[in-house]
């Protein structure tokens, strides 16, 4: 493993049990200020509603908590540690100024119900972000209420449904390409639509003839990701939009891959009627180990009356306020106004970039993906030769001959200091290896990644077992997911034995030869 030393070495990784295993009565990490009002008889106030005992909640000191979570943190991979080439996830740098401004007192401590008069700063942030996003997407109206991408999809399809309802017929089906994210069909089902699969053609894009054949007046919308999950721009987008519109359908765009388009082309200009954005992808709000996200939904004028309430409006006196009187609204999709803290961060990102920065960002993202493609073509099978935008999808076809699959290669990447790419998705590519570098990677980091991928391809030829049992450098080896699902242990219980090998050393602490 000599060639690995450029990128990855090991360091000591402290073992750390569950917090409950450190707890003992009398330890405390808290101290309350003395009560400045008379103490109360809780039994008298609460009667039978009084709680006597808090079960197995931990009792630990502050330093133990700091060490506990700091140690746990060192077991994570993160953007701050290196490249995260997850396709369709857009794992880009999360600027720290975003975090700083979101913690300013009047922003972090604003109550959602404080008077409008003392909420003008928050409302101005919502307004400014909304305007920027409308300009970026080329759409007419926007709601920031949805809490994540899938929540945005739900909102978008509810708008589609409300629109068709208002015209007297809700329609029955939503068309979804076979390359789509799983959230698309799951969302359509939640809105009461039947899902009809739309086949991709040999180029990996929408088959226009199939679309024409499947489009009729029962189809409410087509949910399209553009560029699609292969990273290919739907070149015939104008035809797609025309076919839908001719029969009264709407074009929904999943904005997951918006990082390929910002500042270069606007969905509103190529026929999209409704779309969602992922602020935690394109607009740099941190992924936080799985959330929070934010999924604004932008629409054309025709869908505006149906937007969730409340809607932000400018009042005649120049102040901002919320309009709740929206008779055609689909209603609320979330309490209050959405994940406001993410709006702050996304806006800080847009302000840091400006028009020139956003365009350069998109160009670099596309440049990086094509650089990887060029360098790995031949080493890995490229199932679709259509031009790539911000991501590229290879397959494990060449390595599978030796019994090495996409997941094995992905796990082996960990040993080289990288997070795996997206495996086994999109479903239309058997053994898919979906790579999205984003703009945040330097040429040096990309070169290391390419080098690692080439080295793994060579290992797959020479030492398949090495790849198939990877990773070898992590504190745990591949975990038994089948056992986890068969007999789920979803919480700690008193008396649960700490794993017998808990205190065991990581596989090897010996310095690399």
């Amino acid at each position: 493993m000599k060639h690995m030393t450029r990128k990855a070495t090991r360091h000591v990784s402290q073992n750390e049990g569950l917090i409950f295993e450190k707890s003992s009565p009398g330890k405390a990490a808290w101290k309350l200020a003395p009560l400045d009002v008379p103490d109360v008889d809780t039994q008298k106030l609460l009667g039978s509603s009084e709680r006597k005992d808090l079960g197995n909640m931990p009792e630990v000191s502050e330093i133990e908590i700091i060490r506990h979570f700091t140690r746990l943190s060192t077991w994570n991979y993160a953007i701050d540690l290196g490249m995260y080439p997850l396709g369709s996830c857009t794992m880009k740098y999360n600027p720290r100024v975003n975090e700083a401004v979101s913690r300013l007192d009047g922003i972090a401590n604003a109550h959602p119900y404080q008077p409008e008069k003392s909420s003008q700063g928050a409302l101005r942030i919502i307004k400014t972000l909304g305007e920027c996003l409308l300009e970026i997407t080329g759409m007419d109206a926007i709601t920031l209420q949805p809490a994540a991408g899938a929540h945005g999809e739900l909102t978008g399809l509810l708008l589609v449904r409300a629109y068709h309802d208002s015209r007297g017929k809700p329609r029955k089906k939503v068309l979804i390409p076979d390359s789509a994210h799983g959230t698309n069909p799951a969302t359509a089902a939640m809105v009461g639509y039947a899902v009809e699969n739309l086949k991709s053609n040999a180029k990996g894009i929408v088959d226009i003839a199939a679309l024409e054949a499947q489009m009729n007046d029962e189809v409410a919308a087509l949910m399209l990701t553009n560029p699609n999950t292969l990273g290919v721009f739907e070149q015939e987008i104008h035809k797609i939009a025309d076919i839908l519109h001719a029969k009264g359908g709407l074009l929904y765009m999943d904005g997951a891959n918006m990082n390929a388009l910002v500042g270069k082309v606007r969905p509103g200009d190529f026929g999209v009627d409704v779309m969602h954005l992922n602020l935690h992808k394109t607009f740099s709000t941190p992924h936080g180990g799985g959330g929070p996200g934010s999924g604004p939904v932008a629409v054309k004028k025709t869908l505006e009356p149906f937007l969730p309430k409340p809607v932000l409006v400018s009042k005649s006196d120049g102040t901002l306020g919320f309009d709740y009187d929206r008779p055609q609204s689909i209603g609320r999709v979330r309490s209050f106004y959405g994940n406001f803290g993410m709006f702050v961060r996304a806006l800080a990102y847009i302000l840091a970039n400006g028009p020139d920065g956003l365009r350069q960002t998109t160009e670099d993202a596309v440049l990086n993906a094509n650089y990887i493609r060029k360098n790995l073509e031949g080493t890995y099978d490229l199932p679709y030769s259509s031009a790539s935008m911000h991501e590229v999808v290879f397959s494990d076809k060449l390595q599978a001959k030796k019994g090495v699959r996409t997941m094995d290669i992905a796990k082996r990447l960990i040993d080289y200091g990288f997070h795996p790419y997206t495996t086994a998705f999109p479903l239309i590519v058997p053994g898919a290896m979906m790579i999205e570098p984003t703009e945040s990677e330097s040429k040096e980091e990309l070169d290391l990644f390419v080098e690692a991928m080439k080295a793994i391809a060579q290992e797959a030829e020479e030492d398949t077992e090495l790849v198939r049992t990877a990773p070898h450098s992590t504190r745990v080896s591949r975990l038994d997911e089948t056992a986890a699902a068969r007999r789920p242990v979803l919480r700690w219980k008193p008396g649960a034995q700490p794993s017998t090998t808990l205190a065991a050393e990581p596989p090897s602490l010996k310095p690399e030869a």
Partner: protein
Amino acid sequence: MRYLPKSPADREAMLKAIGARSIDDLFAPIPAEYRLNRDLKIPRQMAESEIVDWFRERSRENGDGHATFLGAGAYYHYRPVIIDALISRGEFLTAYTPYQAEISQGTLQSIFEFQTMICELTGMEVANASMYDGSTAAAEAVMMAVRLTGRRSVVVARSVHPEYREVLSTYASHQGMPLAIVNFAENGRVSAREIENSISSDTACVLVQSPNFFGTIEDIEALADVVHSKGAMLVVAIPEAVSLGIVEPPRSADIIAMEAQSFGVPLGFGGPYCGVIATRELYVRQMPGRLVGQTTDRNGKRGFVLTLATREQHIRREKATSNICTNQALIALMANIFMTVYGKVGLKELARQNLAKTAYAAQQFGKHSEVLFAGVPRFNEFVIRTSEDPYAINSRLLGHKIIGGFPLKKFYPELGNSSLWCCTEMTSRSMIDTAVGNVAESERSVRSAREEEAEVAR
């Protein structure tokens, strides 16, 4: 652009390696007619110092430094500083969803601990890794009960947070789920008898909230008895998580939909917050959202993985239990650290302080105005009815840099000039006394105005 790690020479070299003449070659797949050949009309690129200034200005416009009596689903509690210190570590902040377990054990183990503590506090057997917020958690919990019972209709108490009810009604709109609303009784609670009467053989579940929107603690045991006797499920929403430190959890509920914002999450003008669903082990396969489970690696070493993924959209697509994908992981980590800091004893003491401040405030307000629903236990919120419009009272209080209680007229017109006040450990006695003084003043002036009128009439 300072976030982009490339020199012009790097870009040149990369284009050359690709075999492209210019960057435009790479955008050739986009039909020319749609390409944007101008700058976006957004603010120009700003320096970091300018960005900070811009947001400082917004922060000031938001009335920073105000004390607040607002609760109503979003609570102002003290946040131990180690929360931000720890969640700001890049390894937590900038990590992806922990699908790759070998390099995500930090996130996975912390979620496992979160699930455990939520179970301990709620009295449930399993809890998920988080939902968007309390309102969507409640809607998803109701849909879960619909799947579990095979029944379609839902009974909702009117004392559930009005915005939670609005979200539920949006979610239910195309699921063929009729919603029936049951009003609260004189004492602010829903009556078990009324609930009983509203349940039909098609009722999947009853959704109540405790402490409810008025801060009143519902009689969960009595409700559970009638709901279960009719073969329906009881879903309980808990928007004020700190209540669990001193209020008996709804152990006889079938599903709990919680909002964990009170556990160390900033008010942040309404989000991001942290919803959670907790339930019985028996129902776990119909649960929405991510779950972390314990397992072992090839060497028998304990480790954690995302599990039971066959419920989820990326595997099951249109047959999934929900479309939820991204959740609120980092916010759940805040809640996790908060629960760890206060722990078994601190959480109880914290809740006790909330109770004491609220009891004192209710007593003081009660000297000058009517305290509604006084006969039943409450946690840290109470309703007062004033003679004057609460908006007018609040507007004067704002002059003291105090934000008064939440006027209830908007959601409950029949309650007239009532407002909902919340006291936490952050509410000082002097704040309470100032607010009470203001209400007393208001009542005096209304009274003297009335007397004057009577005088004139005589």
